[in-house]
């Protein structure tokens, strides 16, 4: 469908500006093309009681009316799912630190566990504990992050079993000198009482 352009009037000084090569050559084919609303071959429905223009108008209107009742355009409903019972002492999105310990055969490693919304995200040695060697267990954190299971059971229980497993893994990584490295990674404080 062509648009009818409102061109500015011809300038008074008698100069004629052409707007395209077609207008310059001014052939009968170009004149016919200029006057036809739709290109040749397009159905114009001229003989019927419906013209092409009327048909499109009606179809457009019916689509609009159908659109008012369209429900698929709504924003999908989403949910917020809080805990049923709150996790003790947590503030949403803030860290909560626990002092805990990993029991060893000879004693325990003092640790600080960082939790967010009840989930442990980081384990490190307790820097306030000065009697034994300071402990750093850096490799445990990615282990916790990778866990698919929600860690809502007691933090300590989970950590205990994982820590044991993880340290064994870490020790294997450090082969062949693993025994020496292991002692640097995690020195234990032995309770001799």
């Amino acid at each position, binding site marked *: 469908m062509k648009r009818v352009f409102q061109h500015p009037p011809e300038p008074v000084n008698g100069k004629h500006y052409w707007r395209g090569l077609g207008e310059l050559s001014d052939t009968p084919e170009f004149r016919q093309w200029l006057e036809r609303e739709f290109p040749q071959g397009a159905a114009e429905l001229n003989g019927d009681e419906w013209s092409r223009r009327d048909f499109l108008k009606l179809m457009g209107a019916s689509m609009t009316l159908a659109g008012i009742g369209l429900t698929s355009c709504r924003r999908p*409903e*989403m*949910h917020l*799912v*809080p805990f*049923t019972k*709150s996790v003790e002492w947590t503030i*949403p*999105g803030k860290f909560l630190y626990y002092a805990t310990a990993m029991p060893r055969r000879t004693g325990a490693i003092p640790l600080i566990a960082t939790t967010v919304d009840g989930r442990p995200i980081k384990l490190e040695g307790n820097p306030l504990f000065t009697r034994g060697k300071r402990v750093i267990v850096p490799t445990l954190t990615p282990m916790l992050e990778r866990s698919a299971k929600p860690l809502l059971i007691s933090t300590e229980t989970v950590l205990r079993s994982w820590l044991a497993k993880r340290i064994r893994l870490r020790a294997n990584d450090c082969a062949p000198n693993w025994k020496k490295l292991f002692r640097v990674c995690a020195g234990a404080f032995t309770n001799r009482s």
Partner: protein
Amino acid sequence: MDCRYCHSFVEMAAQSNVPNTQTCMNCHTQVQKDNPKLEPVRASWKTGDPIDWVWIHRTVDYVYYNHAAHVNRGISCFSCHGPVNHMPVVYQAKPHSMGWCLECHRHPENFLRPEDQVFNLDWKPDDVKPAEFVAKYGKPQGVTEDWSKRKTLSQSEIGQTLKERWNITPPQNCQGCHR
């Protein structure tokens, strides 16, 4: 009922928490305990499955919004959530578009209120007693008129006072929120 009974961490955390079933059941074991509308709450308490609260005010992921930062600096819940205390069913009252955020970030004086009225959703600027207000917060710079003799103060007068008093300069750069 104060907003903070259920949304208890709004003053401390970035998110305003949705209450857990435990919080609902603090009262609803005794109040309205047979109301059929509260059946989902009772079911949740019984089974331990959480309640699916419909998420009305959704902030897109690429926007950082901190509730505590706003609420602690005199922006009321009302400014963003509208008259929630008069809504039979909660709806989104304000557009929550970026232009709308900037309206306040550019002119916070139109929205600031005394910090003890932040959770009062029915607060009007006319509620402020000028003499008490001026004694507590002072006046903006360059105002010679004695406001304490006035009957009422307008929102922009209250806001301007608080803005200068608390030195409020909301970020207007992109990375203030899109970080």
